[in-house]
């Protein structure tokens, strides 16, 4: 087994037990023992042990010549010919990484008739833009997009590839990573370069968000990561920036698809996309009924925000599932999240706790939501919310 404890060194200090996220370590006769059926070799105990008594061995069979791979790439997702803002956020972060590595930042865009968007990518910091235009690529489809991106990666050998953790990004990049047989880290909240090894340090929440893990891909290239929308800021544009445009054409066979897109339907109800919204007004069990959401709707309208809901509100059919925030719903990261009558169960908190400002309105002073709220209001939401709406309407003149 690749993990074992050196019994002579172990003093039974229990530090490893505290560190183990899987509860896989026990003390038997004053020595730590790892229950191998539970262990997933995450290495948390190895870090925690001050006596170097835990050994985790990994054998790598092939040696990688990392110098053959260079540059930071950002997959620039487009919909209806428009680059999605997550791509600009990645270019902002990618720029910092490229500077630390003293290398180029490139964007990759697949689609049809992309001229203006290419400029936009350069203004947002791309030194190079790799472009594949083909009518087969006009809208996202798993197979042609995967094939095109795989070919580009094989040809130009980037050191790092970043992609938005969107519904398109997650489907696409998972396939690409498997085809290239490299590592992929989902939903990173932090990206940095290790100054000694020049390796990408990918930090993400693990085990439900209460533990952070830093993950590396030491022996495979490119190093690939996805990042959720709004985790990084967009950065400014410089319309004087110049960049290189590299166009590629692929054989039609490479762009064949076993799925066929028949129609795209946009739903009016979710016009203000929850994950895009800068302000979210959200309601929970404390709202008492579907009709009471009207007061939240008015506040959201005045603030130009979107409507959210807790699982309790959705399960009671007060709001549609598309509004649900939390573990089984959407993860949001707005500037302001206003939680009304939401107690703040852990499943809800994991979906919204990275919001910049959290306002909580709740009758119960002991509600867990107040533990994460920037501004907590103990009081009757049916009084406070309409008063807030009225005051904001005056100020914002709506």
């Amino acid at each position, binding site marked *: 087994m690749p993990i074992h404890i050196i019994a002579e060194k172990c003093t039974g200090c229990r530090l490893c037990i505290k560190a183990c996220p899987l509860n896989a370590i026990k003390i038997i006769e004053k020595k730590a023992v790892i229950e191998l059926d539970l262990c997933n070799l995450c290495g948390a105990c190895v870090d925690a042990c001050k006596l170097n008594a835990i050994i985790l061995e990994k054998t790598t069979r092939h040696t990688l010549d990392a110098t053959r791979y260079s540059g930071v790439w950002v997959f620039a997702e487009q919909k209806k010919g428009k680059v999605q803002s997550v791509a600009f956020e990645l270019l902002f972060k990618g720029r910092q990484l490229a500077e630390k590595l003293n290398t180029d930042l490139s964007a990759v865009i697949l689609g049809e008739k992309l001229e203006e968007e290419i400029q936009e990518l350069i203004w947002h910091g791309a030194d190079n833009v790799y472009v594949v235009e083909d009518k087969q690529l006009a809208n996202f489809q798993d197979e042609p997009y995967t094939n095109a991106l795989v070919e580009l990666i094989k040809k130009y050998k980037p050191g790092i590839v970043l992609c938005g953790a969107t*519904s398109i990004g997650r489907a696409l990049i*998972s396939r690409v990573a498997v085809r290239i*047989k490299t590592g992929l880290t989902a939903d990173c909240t932090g990206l940095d370069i290790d100054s000694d090894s020049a390796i990408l340090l990918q930090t993400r929440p693990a085990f439900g968000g209460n533990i*952070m893990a830093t993950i590396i891909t030491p022996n495979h290239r490119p190093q690939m990561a996805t990042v959720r929308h709004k985790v990084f800021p967009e950065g400014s544009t410089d319309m004087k920036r110049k960049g290189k445009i590299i166009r590629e054409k692929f054989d039609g066979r490479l762009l064949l698809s076993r799925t066929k897109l028949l129609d795209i339907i946009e739903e009016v109800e979710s016009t203000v996309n929850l994950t*895009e919204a800068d302000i979210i007004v959200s309601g929970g069990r404390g709202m008492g009924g579907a009709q009471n959401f009207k007061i939240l709707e008015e506040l959201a309208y005045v603030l130009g925000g979107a409507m959210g809901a807790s699982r309790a509100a959705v399960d009671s059919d007060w709001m549609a*599932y598309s509004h649900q925030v939390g573990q089984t719903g959407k993860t949001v990261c707005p500037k302001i999240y206003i939680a009304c009558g939401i107690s703040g169960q852990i499943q809800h908190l994991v979906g919204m706790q990275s919001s910049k400002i959290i306002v909580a309105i709740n009758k119960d002073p002991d509600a867990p939501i107040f533990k994460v709220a920037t501004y907590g209001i*103990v009081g009757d939401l049916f009084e406070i919310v309409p008063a807030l709406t009225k005051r904001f309407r005056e100020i914002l003149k709506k």
Partner: protein
Amino acid sequence: MDIIVCIKQVPETTQVRINPATNTLIREGVKAIINPFDTYAIEEAVRLKERFGGKTTVISMGPPQAEEALREAMAMGLDEAVLLTDRAFAGSDTLATSYIVSCAIEKLTPFDLILCGKQASDGDTAQVGPGISTHLDIPQVTYVKKIREVGNSYALVERMTEEGYEILKVALPALLTVVKEINEPRIPSLRGMMRAKRAQVLCWKAQDISADSGRIGLDGSPTQVVKIFTPPPRKGGQIFEGETSDIVEKLVELLKDQI
């Protein structure tokens, strides 16, 4: 129509408590359940079987106790179960995991459809489903919210997007990952539970599925965890109580520059 459903056993988060001293999850005594997203995949497979007939197989990779999750899936109506359990699988990242599951599915070939939940509630990566379809070189549709129609060699499905949904026709065999909107999973019937209790769960190790030892477990995983740490907990801020008009005035003052 033969269907394979891939599931994962995860800790039940409604029971998760947090140790205030270390800000880490307390896992002691936490019940293991089927990943909630996978229950929709199980339900959809049962419904398709009820409409079209055929065989359904549920498959999971995990420690020996993941057998419980497979029995629960059989209680909901799936026919057969395979548990992929081997200490050599420990430490597998999403590349190695999707490889292992795809090796097992090769052994179960032919099939028409593979169904997975959109992601697991503990890891949240959404990478294993697409990984499996890539290893098997079959098409995929992620975030499926409705299967409209199934023909001999195709399925017509709705795929959820950020703005609404898309209608796609996908050639079979294919892999679909499904979202909550697709159905409401049933409660297992007493008869189903009795049957599941007696049913056989096949246990396969790495050699049973001809998995290459260099591509599984820690050695077969390109990603490596180098550090695990507890972020400082988000601190509660100011609390306001008292007259509504005072509270509203203060709050508007604090927020107005952010809007």
